[in-house]
């Protein structure tokens, strides 16, 4: 059996489950008695076991099986949640993660049996009753379905809701002497292609008679949206033994239950009041509601559990959230994004061509054409936004692992600390989210390891014993800002200075003239670490320069604010979109350049006399602020076409809370531009230029990176 086509889904879902487990176990540590959490953990562990089993990863299955056993006992109140259990569980999760990584890299789970872990789990189990651990775990499904089965004895067709037409068909058939059976088919747990087996069952039954109702619906069965069993109501002339035999002939069928249908014992639709509701119906409904409530968590596995429920009265509540989403390969989205880019370039060309033809012929473009072009513009802009949104994912998926990491660090470093996070729902482009995890981890580790002081120092400084690390994310205009802050030591600029001199990065004379900010920037030099000791948490000096280069590769930037003795804040600023931006087109010395609207604050008309010199640098006074002036013609090595005494057009650009005035010759207007790389050979050779774009007339314009000028 080839399961490789499911591998990707398996990996995705496993990662999700592991993350869920991590979060839930952390919660459990806080509230050891919370039944909801315990149930959730149990379900996740069970789903993991099932998935690993299906994919043939035996070792993974064994480990999850044992974890499940422990949880089943916790659930039954036979084991209490203690600190050592939590620790073991976390180790198990790490082991599972290792399996997953192995599978992702090589398609094989590896050979680590993790026997010590399994033994520890079993010790916990045996410590309680010494019973057979393997038998201790009742199947989740059995437990879940138990209340219903008390009434129905596994005859799940009794839960099928019949509407008026179905009842009429059934009673009509019974009048004609045909037989009406309810059948519940259970497929073996090891079966991989449940939908295919179900299809064969349907086919076998249809040869003998007619299927009037199936639960779940035929469509859901086809899409494999069911657990291990499904129920049918069939009308046939054949006798029951023949029907069950036909179904049992299909391979991988575990059991077939069939019986004559008694309309009065069935659940009936609300509006078919003609038939009396029996006692049984109401109890079945109650159990349905109870189980649905347990499974109400909007999570894939929980949703699946809810779906097989006899959720007769509220099909909407049982509908899994996952049904409304589609997994799409990121490459397909990239293709889509490229096509949108080309569409925007084509649209820009159309605008340029229409303007050019109007100029040539001297006849204004007919207003109908202009209207349509404007309409096209709004459509392409919306299309671009929609595609961008599709690519956006909340940073939650990345930051969720941090509470666990901080917990581990807290134990390892023997410092008390607490991580507070906000803005986990902030969305970023998927490619950025994938890359941002490592830099954030570095910063958090940094804060934990040499940001926060030891307990004694904290006490001396009158700080609370538990150190605070914060991770805040929020959107700021066209940027997303992620801040990592701690209330620890802050950056000791003297230590940094001395270290830099020791390393020969700067001379003592240079050091004396450096501003605080310049000194802090030294931290981002390769192989620079101020930790006096190298621990395995941080201090090998591979951290901050990697953080910086990674963030810069994502067209973002890092900034540090620190106050010695009070803590430091690392601010990461990332662009919302990477491919298409709104830009202001300007002309400098006859050349066209684009400046991202995101970095522009205002545009000013300044008389040359307003320019003052401060420390030999040109500045202007603007509404109480002193803003340095950057003459773009000098920076770009061109000659300005403006006369000396003419008024200047100054673009006030901002970066964080710093501003600068960029002097340009002419403004062309706002345009949506597609950022193109300038090719391997030339990219990143000029710091001022962050890329190029193709204008409507086919010409290339360069994109100025205003940030480098501030």
């Amino acid at each position, binding site marked *: 059996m080839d399961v490789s086509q499911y591998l990707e889904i398996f990996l995705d879902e496993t990662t999700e489950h592991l993350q869920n487990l991590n979060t839930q176990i952390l919660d459990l540590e806080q509230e050891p008695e919370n039944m909801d959490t315990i149930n959730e953990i149990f379900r996740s562990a069970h789903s993991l076991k099932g998935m690993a089993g299906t994919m043939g990863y035996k070792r993974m299955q064994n480990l999850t099986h044992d974890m499940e056993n422990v949880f089943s006992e916790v659930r039954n109140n036979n084991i209490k949640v203690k600190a050592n259990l939590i620790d073991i569980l976390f180790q198990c999760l790490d082991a599972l993660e290792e399996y997953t990584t192995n599978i992702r890299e090589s398609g094989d789970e590896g050979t680590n049996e993790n026997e010590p872990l399994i033994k520890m789990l079993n010790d916990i189990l045996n410590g309680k009753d010494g019973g057979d651990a393997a038998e201790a775990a009742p199947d989740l499904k059995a437990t879940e379905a138990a209340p219903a089965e008390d009434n129905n004895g596994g005859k799940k067709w009794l839960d099928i809701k019949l509407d008026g037409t179905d009842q009429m068909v059934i009673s009509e058939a019974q009048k004609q002497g045909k037989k009406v059976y309810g059948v519940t088919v259970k497929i073996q747990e090891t079966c991989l292609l449940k939908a295919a087996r179900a299809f064969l069952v349907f086919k076998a039954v249809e040869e003998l008679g007619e299927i009037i109702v199936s639960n779940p619906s035929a469509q859901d069965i086809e899409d494999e949206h069911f657990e291990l069993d499904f129920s049918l109501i069939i009308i046939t002339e054949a006798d029951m033994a023949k029907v069950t035999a036909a179904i049992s002939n299909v391979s991988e069928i575990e059991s077939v239950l069939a019986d004559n249908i008694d309309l009065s014992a069935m659940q009936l639709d609300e509006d078919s009041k003609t038939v009396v509701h029996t006692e049984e119906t109401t109890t079945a409904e109650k159990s349905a509601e109870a189980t649905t409530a347990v499974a109400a968590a909007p999570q894939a596995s929980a949703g699946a559990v809810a779906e097989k429920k006899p959720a007769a009265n509220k099909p909407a509540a049982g509908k899994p959230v996952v049904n409304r989403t589609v997994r799409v390969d990121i490459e397909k989205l990239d293709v889509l994004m490229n096509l949108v880019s080309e569409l925007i370039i084509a649209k820009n060309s159309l605008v340029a061509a229409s303007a050019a033809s109007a100029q040539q012929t001297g006849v204004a473009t007919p207003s109908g054409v202009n209207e349509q072009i404007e309409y096209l513009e709004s459509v392409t802009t919306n299309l671009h936004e929609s595609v961008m949104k599709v690519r956006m994912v909340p940073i939650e998926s990345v930051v969720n692992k941090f509470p666990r990491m901080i917990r581990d660090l807290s134990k390892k470093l023997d410092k008390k600390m607490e991580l507070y996070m906000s803005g986990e729902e902030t969305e970023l482009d998927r490619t950025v989210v994938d890359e941002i995890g490592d830099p954030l981890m570095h910063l958090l580790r940094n804060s934990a390891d040499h940001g926060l002081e030891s307990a004694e120092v904290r006490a001396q400084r009158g700080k609370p014993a538990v150190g605070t690390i914060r991770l805040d994310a929020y959107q700021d205009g066209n940027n997303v800002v992620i801040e990592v802050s701690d209330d620890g030591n802050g950056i000791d600029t003297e230590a940094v200075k001395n270290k830099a001199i020791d390393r020969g990065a700067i001379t003592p004379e240079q050091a004396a003239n450096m501003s605080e900010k310049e000194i802090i920037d030294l931290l981002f030099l390769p192989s620079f670490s101020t930790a006096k000791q190298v621990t395995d948490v941080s201090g090998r000096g591979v951290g901050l320069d990697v953080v910086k280069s990674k963030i810069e590769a994502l067209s973002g930037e890092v900034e540090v604010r620190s106050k010695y003795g009070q803590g430091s804040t690392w601010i990461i600023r990332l662009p919302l979109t990477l491919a298409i931006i709104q830009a202001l087109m300007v002309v400098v010395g006859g050349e066209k350049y684009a400046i991202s609207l995101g970095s522009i604050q205002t545009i000013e008309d300044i008389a040359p006399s307003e320019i003052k010199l401060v420390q030999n640098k040109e500045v202007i006074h603007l509404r109480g602020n002193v803003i340095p002036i950057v003459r773009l013609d000098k920076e770009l*090595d061109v000659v300005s076409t403006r006369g000396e005494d003419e008024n200047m057009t100054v673009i006030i650009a901002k970066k964080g809370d710093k501003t600068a005035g960029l002097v340009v010759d002419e403004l062309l207007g706002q345009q949506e531009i597609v950022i193109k790389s*300038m090719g391997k*050979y030339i990219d990143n050779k*000029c710091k001022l230029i962050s890329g190029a774009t193709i204008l409507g007339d086919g*010409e290339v*314009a*360069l994109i100025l990176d205003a940030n480098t000028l501030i």
Partner: protein
Amino acid sequence: MEELKLVGETIQYIVIRLGQEQYGIDIKYIDNIVRMQHVTRVPKMPAYLKGVINLRGEVIPIMSIKLKMGLEEDEATKATRIIIVKLEQAGTIGMIVDEVKEVVTLDLAEQVEKLAYDKEEKNNFVQSVGKYEGGLISLLDLNAVVQEK
């Protein structure tokens, strides 16, 4: 270039003109040949990097082989072409040449003479010489041409 020289093994070269001299470029590197067009200057680049052009929606860097070789500035004429080459390390690059003449097929054993070739030397872009119809064609080592020294 492959060290192995088998009789009958041939390579096709595109013959280009730079100033008065003829050069050959191995055809396997060549992606496209386009007419000279407006090149958008990129600031702060060495002189030989002329800028970028739009080649069917892609932005391609353009360099002047002549400036890189220390010859005089290109003068755009009707015959001037941009040869788009694809190199493993440097990616896609357009190179300005004065004229594209023809495609020749040279027998490696008979017609190609390796030169005593010093990779370290600064302006050495010619790795071998081809003999063709009584004339000589200098065969360019493109990787050396694009390399920054």
